[in-house]
C-alpha cells in the first residue's frame, strides 16, 4: 500500500512475527488491516466466528478521497471524521450551556 496511516506488529513466541500496514477510516476512524504486497488495496477483515482473516477489496470515498472501512462504504454517504467530531463537540457545548443556565 502506498500511503498507510498506521503499522502493527504482533510478536508471538510460537509463530512468525506478523507485520501489517493499517489504514484508519476517514469517516469513522475504524482501523483496517491491509494485506501486504497488494498493488490494489486489499483489506483483511476479522471473522469473529472463526477468528480468521478474510480478504475484501479496499474502499475509497471519492468525495473526500480517503480510504474508508467497509461499513462506511456500505453506508454510501460521505461524512468526514472532522465533521462528526465537530458535531459531537458542539452538541456537548450546547448541553453544558443549557445545564449551566438551568
Amino acid at each position, binding site marked *: 500500500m502506498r500511503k*498507510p*496511516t*498506521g*503499522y*502493527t*506488529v*504482533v*510478536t*508471538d*513466541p*510460537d*509463530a512468525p512475527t506478523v507485520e501489517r500496514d*493499517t*489504514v*484508519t477510516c476517514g469517516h*469513522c*476512524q*475504524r*482501523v483496517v488491516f491491509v494485506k501486504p504486497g497488494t498493488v490494489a488495496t486489499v483489506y483483511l477483515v*476479522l471473522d*469473529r466466528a472463526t*477468528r480468521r482473516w478474510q480478504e475484501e477489496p479496499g474502499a475509497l470515498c471519492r468525495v473526500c478521497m480517503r480510504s474508508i472501512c467497509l*461499513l462506511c462504504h456500505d453506508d454510501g454517504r460521505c461524512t468526514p*471524521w472532522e465533521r462528526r*467530531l465537530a458535531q*459531537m*463537540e458542539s*452538541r*456537548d457545548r450546547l448541553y*453544558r450551556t443549557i445545564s449551566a443556565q438551568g
Partner: protein
Amino acid sequence: MANYAVNLHRTASTTASVGSVAANATRPRRGEFYDILFGTDGTVGENPFLYVIQRFTAAGTSTAVTPQPCDPADAATESTAGQNHTVEPTYTAGQILFEWAINQRASARWFATEHGRLIYPATASNGLGIATPTAPAVLVTTHLWYTER
C-alpha cells in the same frame, strides 16, 4: 499540544475493560491515541484473545491512573485515565475502532501516522476504552501514548 504515556493494567477487575482514557468532565480536550502496546503479564496460557478499542460516552467506575507527560516540561494532562473497571464505560454500539484476535502468548503493537490517529472528542467524559470482550478475567496490560490538544 503535549504527549502523554499511560500504563493500564487489569488485575482484579471482573469487567471486560482493561482501561480507559476520557476527556475531562469539566475541561474536556481532544486526545489522539498514536501508539499502543498490548500484552499479558499473567500466567502463560493458550488462550485466544480479542482486543478491542471502543468509543464510550461515560467513563464508568475504575481506579484512577495518572498519565505522565513525555516531556517533563509539559503540564499535567486534562484527560482522565482508569483501570480495573468495576462498572464498564458506556460503550457506543458499533463504534469499535480497533479489533485484533491474538493468542495470550503474543504481544502486539500498533502505531499511527499523523493521519491515522484515534481521536476522542473534547466532549465531557467521552473517550476510548480498551477491552477484551471474550476473556474478561485474564491479566492484561496495555501501554499507550496519546497527544492532547
